[in-house]
Each structure stands twice: as C-alpha cells, then as structure tokens.
C-alpha cells in the first residue's frame, strides 16, 4: 500500500490510519513533488506549505492519542482558488481580489478538514471560473502535465493538472458549464459535477448561481466517490442546499454494468466539432458496457443542441449580477476616482481581465431593457425544453453517455483570440448543467497525439450512485494509458 505521490487517496488514508505512514511524511513527499514539478506546470496560485505541515502534525498527534482523524486522514487535497480559505489568499485568479484574505472558510473546506484531509494549496483557474483553458488567469496559464505545450482545460485547470501531475491525490474544482469535467478529460483524470444542491456552495465565490457546483477530481473513480461523499450533504448556510435522502457515490462501485440501460446521446456525439478520435472512444466505451451486459442504445435529446447558446446567455447574465459586488468598497482592489461612480468604473476596468469584462457586457446586454425577453427569457424557456427532453430519455435509460469534450487537449494560445471557438469546448457538458443533473468524466484511452480522451456519464438528478457505478465499470475495462 503506497502513500507516495501518485498513490490513491484510499491507499494514503489507509496507510496513515493504520500507522504505516505518518501524515507528516505524506505531506512532505507531496510538497517535494510540488516543488519539483510546479515551475513547469503552474497548477497553483498559492502553495500552503506551512499550514499543510501544521495540519499533518495535528493529524499525527491525534492518531498517537488513539483518535481517528477521518476517512481522508493525511490525504493532500488541492483547492480551486475560488473556494474561501480563512486567512489564506483567495484570488479567483483575478487582480480585483489579489491579496484578499477571506474572513471565513467555505463549508467544503471545513468538511475536508473534519475528514482529516490536508489542504496543500489553491489552484489556478480561468478568472472567476470563466473559460475553458485556464489561460484567462491573471497570474499566467497552467500547463497540461500530459503535454506542456497544451492547455489543461478549464476553468478548474489547476486542480486537474495538480491531480494529473501527482501533486495531490485529490482536488476540488467547480463546474458551471463543464469546468470540472472538461479539464479532467483533457488531463486524463476523473472529474464529477454533482447534482445541483448536493454540495454546499457557502464560501464558493459565485459565478452563475443557478449552475455553480463544487465537485471532486481524482485519479480513480473510488477516490472521486470518497471525496464527493465527504463534501456532500445539507448545509444550513446555503439556501440552495438539498436536504433529506441524499445519494452515496460509493454505494455500488462494484455493481458492474449488467442489466443497466445506457443511452448514447445522438445530439452530443454528433455535436459541432466533435473529432472522430473522441467519437470512436465513446463508441468503444458503449461497446464495453454492452459486452458487460448493459442494454446500450442510441437516444435523442433534441433540445440539447440549444444548450450552448442558452448557456452563454444565462451564465453571463447571472455573472453580470454576481460580479456587481466588486465595487472597490469593502474588499479587494480600489482605484479611487473623484466620486463613487467613477471609482466603480475605474476599479472594475483595472481589476477584471478581458474575458470577465466580455461576460459582464454580454450578460448586462442580455438583461437590459428591450432585450431581456428575447435573450434571457428565451434562454430560460429553452432550459425548460432541455429538462423535459432529459426527463423523456431517463424514463427509458438509467444513464446517458457522450463525449466530455469535442477534442483532446488543444495547444496553448490556439483559441484565445476567438472567444466563440473557446465556448464551443463546453458543448457536451452544458446540457446537464442547465438541467441541474450530475455528470462525470472518466478517462477511456487516448486519441490524437496519444492524449487522453474522457467519456461523459450523465445521470438524472440525485443519480450519483448509478453514475459512479457505471464510471467504475468503465474504469475497470479502460485501456491502460501509456503516460507521455
């Protein structure tokens, strides 16, 4: 049972809980791995070395006293830098929050600590989670550990890269339209967006509030399930948090595919720009599930083709409202003008990068008088159509299958000058986001240039148990990848 960098969270926690390895050694090993690899990758905005060592020492002290520190005892975890950490810089990769120290912890950060996990750093992202390559960071891009000339995807590119590089076995990201699933696929790791409301968003800095969810990155399905089960659950501090009977991601990991009904979504497999290497990997995954005894058929979700357009009206509209709080008054950057109105305009002009400004502009326009109904209202009605079409599909299928991304990881700079081409990276991940449904990606072999391809598993609301069951079944038969 290894606890060295590259080991799974399940193995690390078992080694620490059994006394085979100290949490201090585990954390030191991972910090050394970060120190060696980080200059080439830039996964982190901030490495929490001192705090991580102190937290590890505390876990070892508790173990020595006969206590159980929890299911993630001594496991290093990387946190996307839009999750608030009390007293630790939290920037959203934006100049407007540079140097800000949150006065409170996000609920997911508290839950991780209570489970014995050790936060090792805050990971890079597209500014305010707006982007699909992590190139929209004010602090420079993250590089894909599988090919450093390529993007890691985004917006949670730092979290995906940290896990793929072995800097931490686990990471948290956030997913609004694909920001966990797309980078996980491009970096060859597992990533899951839970059902909207399953994980508390208290302390997650808001981008688009009807879509944002926190979720896990890991190298294995079992690790991702363990992490999700730790962070999931009702939180009175988040009014959109679900209560009652909530699913466990780990309940049926060894259930296998036999007897499950799996639909391959026609509209997403043939969506705009899906490359043939990606499509053939999805077909291979469907064939593997059928060989394992699942009933696999094609299924149509007609309104899914409108997902991208609806999303790029709804998400910017919500963002333009959420980001109005960055006014230079209570925290963050202030560029002072002669009066308050000019202070707002100058602060926001200096503090936000081009993509954030673009989305604020787009969202403000979609909400403005004369355009509200044609754009925002219409997008919300299309959202209803997408939900209805999913309901029809899930009446006949337990889970759906599709590509996670149109292509393997693209080269740095390839899409930065054409925002619309970047937005198309999210075409397969957006429909589940609009519906509030869970969806996840598992690596399933490689495509062009030997780069990883992810297969997306979609499930109905609170369908995490069957979604992870299928993910584990696919993982068990996935081609063993030769690392670049």
């Amino acid at each position, binding site marked *: 049972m290894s606890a060295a960098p590259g080991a799974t969270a399940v193995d690390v926690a078992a080694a620490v809980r059994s006394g085979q390895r100290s949490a201090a050694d585990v954390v030191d090993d991972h910090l050394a791995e970060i120190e060696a690899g980080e200059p080439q990758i830039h996964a982190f905005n901030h490495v929490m070395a001192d705090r991580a060592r102190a937290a590890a020492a505390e876990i070892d002290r508790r173990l020595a006293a006969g206590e159980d520190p929890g299911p993630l005892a001594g496991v290093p975890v990387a946190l996307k830098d839009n999750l608030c950490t009390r007293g630790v810089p939290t920037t959203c990769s934006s100049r407007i929050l540079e140097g*800000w*120290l949150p*006065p*409170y912890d996000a609920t997911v950060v508290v839950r991780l600590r209570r489970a014995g996990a050790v936060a090792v750093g805050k990971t890079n992202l597209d500014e305010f989670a707006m982007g699909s390559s992590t190139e929209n960071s004010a602090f420079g891009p993250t590089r894909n550990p599988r090919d450093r000339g390529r993007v890691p995807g985004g917006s949670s590119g730092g979290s995906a890269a940290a896990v793929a590089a072995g800097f931490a076995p686990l990471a948290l990201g956030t997913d609004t339209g694909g920001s966990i699933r797309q980078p996980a696929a491009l970096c060859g790791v597992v990533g899951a967006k839970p059902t*909207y*409301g399953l994980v508390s968003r208290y302390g997650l800095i808001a981008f688009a509030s*009807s879509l944002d969810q926190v979720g896990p990155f890991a190298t294995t399905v079992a690790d991702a399930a363990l992490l999700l089960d730790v962070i999931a659950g009702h939180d*009175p501090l988040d*009014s*959109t948090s*679900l209560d009652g009977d909530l699913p466990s991601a780990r309940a049926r990991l060894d259930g296998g595919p036999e007897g499950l009904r799996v639909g391959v979504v026609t509209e997403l497999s043939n969506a705009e720009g899906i490359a043939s290497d990606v499509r053939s990997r999805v077909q291979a995954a469907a064939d593997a599930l059928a060989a394992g005894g699942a009933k696999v058929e094609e299924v149509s979700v007609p309104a899914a083709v*409108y997902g*991208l*357009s609806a999303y*790029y*009206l709804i998400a910017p509209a919500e963002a333009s409202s959420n980001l*109005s709080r960055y006014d230079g*008054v*209570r*925290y*963050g*950057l*202030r560029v*002072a*003008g002669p*009066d*308050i109105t000019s*202070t*707002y*305009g*100058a602060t*926001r*002009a200096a503090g*936000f990068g081009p993509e954030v*400004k673009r989305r*604020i*502009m*787009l969202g*403000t*326009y979609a909400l*403005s008088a004369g*355009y509200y109904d*044609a*754009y925002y*209202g*219409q*997008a*919300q*009605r*299309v*959202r*209803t*159509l997408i*939900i209805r079409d999913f309901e029809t599909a899930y009446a006949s299928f337990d889970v759906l299958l599709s590509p996670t991304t149109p292509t393997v990881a693209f080269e740095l700079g390839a899409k930065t000058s054409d*925002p*619309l081409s970047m*937005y198309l990276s999210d075409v397969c991940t957006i429909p589940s986001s609009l*519906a*509030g449904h869970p969806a996840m990606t598992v690596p399933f072999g490689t495509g062009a240039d030997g780069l990883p391809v992810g297969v997306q598993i979609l499930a109905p*609301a609170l369908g995490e148990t069957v979604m992870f069951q299928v993910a584990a079944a696919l993982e068990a038969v996935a081609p063993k990848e030769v690392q670049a």
Partner: protein
Amino acid sequence: MPGRITHDDVAHVARLARLDVTEAEIEMFTEQLGAVLAHAADVASLDTTGVPETAHPLPLSNVLRPDVPTPSLERDEVLAQAPSVDDGRFRVPRILGEAP
C-alpha cells in the same frame, strides 16, 4: 429577434455595468458580442410559445431559519480587508455633490 449589437449599444451596456472601457474595447466587444449573439440566434428564433421559464433547477421556495442571533464575522478581520477604513467603518469617495 433583435438586430445586430451596435457600437452605441456596447457603450451603453458598459455604463450600465459600471465598467470603464476604451474606444478599442468598445470596437472589440461589438464584434465579439455580435458573434456570440449570432450563434444564439438559433435560441432566439425558436418557437417557445407556452413554455415556462426555468430560472433555477431546484423546486425550492423560500428557505427560512429560526430568528436566533448567531455570531457574525470578526469585525476587525473584515475591516482589515477593506481598501479604506475610518473609525470602524468602510470609507468611500464622495457619493453626493458638495454640501450646500
């Protein structure tokens, strides 16, 4: 369906968003927003007569809690993050014109 977004629309929206923009940014945004909105034409032109709007994926109504006082954030810790503070308060530039 609305017509193509114009230079004046973009300048107006920037004012609504309290975002200072340069002339070059207005030109860039006019083109880029035009491209995104053109892609959204498929949605804008769809017949959705009788379809209700979904603002939120959960069937949630107002969430209430007992009206019991709980500790707030540490005042000094919060104020320490402000750009300008005066006597325990956030200090801001002038909001109204000169006093008469």
